[in-house]
């Protein structure tokens, strides 16, 4: 099947920003998941709840909050704008919306796989003289890597499917901020169903691949 230029542009833009968002949240997500799984600290449960909020809140509400935080009239938005960073209504807005919406999925998945790593192994590594950093990178992460990859895939697919928060923060501007989900909505709105179905097919294939890989990874992890 030959896809039109616009279809390619929309698909590649979605994949690129989705990938960037996943890469962006990985270090934070892994660190936070480790803090949740291994450490006790004050207000931990409050922070956990806040991190999970985007998962249950209406995405549009999250989008509105992000708009208020990053909009040019907010102190942060103003500050960023003065330094040449405009978040709202361009690809950076798409990136932020995707990152915030997919973050809880990454944290949850990684946290679970950290929880499945036997803490005794980390303790024994410590008695063998390994620094906390060495323990983390040589024991904990390798033992949890399948959960981390699965979490990243899940976050990536959630990012691709993002709609509500993106449309509020970045708008639905063809060629600038239009992602697969936004484009499908647009095509249906204007009655271009065939174009919408092509994009629909792409999303189904991508989603299938991601979920299938992620589930396969988690299944094989259980066997070890």
């Amino acid at each position: 099947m030959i896809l039109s230029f616009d279809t390619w542009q929309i698909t590649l833009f979605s994949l690129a920003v989705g990938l960037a968002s996943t890469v962006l949240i990985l270090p934070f997500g892994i660190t936070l998941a480790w803090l949740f799984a291994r450490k006790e600290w004050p207000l931990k449960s409050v922070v956990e709840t806040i991190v999970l909020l985007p998962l249950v809140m209406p995405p549009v509400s999250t989008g509105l909050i992000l708009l208020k935080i990053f909009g040019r009239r907010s102190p942060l938005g103003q500050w960023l704008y003065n330094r040449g960073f405009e978040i709202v209504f361009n690809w950076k807005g798409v990136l932020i919306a995707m990152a915030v919406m997919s973050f809880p999925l990454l944290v949850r998945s990684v946290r679970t796989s950290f929880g499945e790593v036997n803490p005794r192994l980390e303790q024994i590594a410590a008695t063998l003289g390994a620094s906390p950093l060495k323990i983390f990178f040589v024991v904990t992460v390798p033992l949890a890597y399948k959960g981390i990859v699965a979490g990243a895939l899940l976050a990536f697919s959630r990012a691709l499917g993002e709609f509500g928060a993106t449309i509020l923060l970045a708008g639905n501007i063809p060629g600038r901020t239009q992602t697969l989900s936004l484009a499908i909505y647009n095509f249906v709105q204007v009655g271009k169903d065939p174009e919408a179905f092509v994009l629909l097919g792409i999303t189904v294939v991508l989603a299938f691949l991601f979920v299938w890989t992620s589930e396969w990874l988690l299944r094989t992890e259980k066997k070890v």
Partner: protein
Amino acid sequence: MLLRCRISLATFELDIDVRFDARVTAIFGPSGSGKTTLLDAIAGLREIASGEIEIGGKTLFSSVRKINLAPQRRNLGYVPQEGALFPHLSVRRNILFGSGRVSRGAAAQSMSMEHVLEILEIGHLLDRSVTELSGGESQRVALARAILSRPQLLLFDEPLAALDIGLKEKILPYLARVRDEFAIPMIYVTHNVTEVLTLADWVLVIRSGRLMAQGLPSETLTSSRAIRAMPEEELENVFTVEFIEADKASGRSRARLSSGDEIFVPYVPTPAQRNIQVRVRADDILIATQRPEGISAANILPGTVRNVEMIEDQSLVRVHAGEIFCVRVTAGAITRLALHEGSAVFLIIKTRSFQLL
């Protein structure tokens, strides 16, 4: 070397002062008596509410002086019950995991990797994945890993508890070889009498976080306080004997007690070392006041009762018959035979009641 340990935890209060020149100090007690807690506290793996831990004059922990050395800086080797090998690393990388640590003292000299592999007979396993190892192999690899981190003290947390009995007896000699070959003091936690009697030079008996008794294993483990802390079936005698000859046809071997008296033990091919350890459970020894005739048991040892001790509803009779044998009988048997200190008796022990270790 001196271990001072005063720790309070929620469930647990322990105050021990052990000066051990002993190579192996066993900490003996039933499950749930706080043995693992104690080891974790020494290794720095568990928070302690208050107290002090000092090894060889060096303070590892002191709530008063606000000292709490990280496990990394305590320089202790820990061999946990389940081995806890890193499942994603090869045997070689497991063994070398802690080998980067700077070594101190003369003990480190004898601890070349080749030597450790040879003593534990695991050289052929180096390139295996640890998931392919048997229970006994895993424990030997865990032991090699701990030794090669060149610790000042080795901590063992019931390293044989997860193995079945046959395997235990195969691993015990390796532990004895490590004890004899490397000059590393050991603290060995267990609830198994055989392990204490075989390996340890000194034993602390703890129960519910309290020190009940301490001393030489052969004396301490038959003391009434220790027996109360011990599972029923585990009261036993362990002796070192000199192997004389094996006789396959009769199904038995002759061995000599340190007193020179000979005993019959089950047949085994003549072992490489002449000195072997045998054990016999205190419940498997009969006492007679006259030499019995026409009886299948091959060991009839004349002896003298050293003392009789009542512990709740059971009686413990210590009889000198070449060695001090500890025999457990009912209170009724004491009355019927009128046993008392100085009574002349015969101990009757079936050949097969002796087990070779």
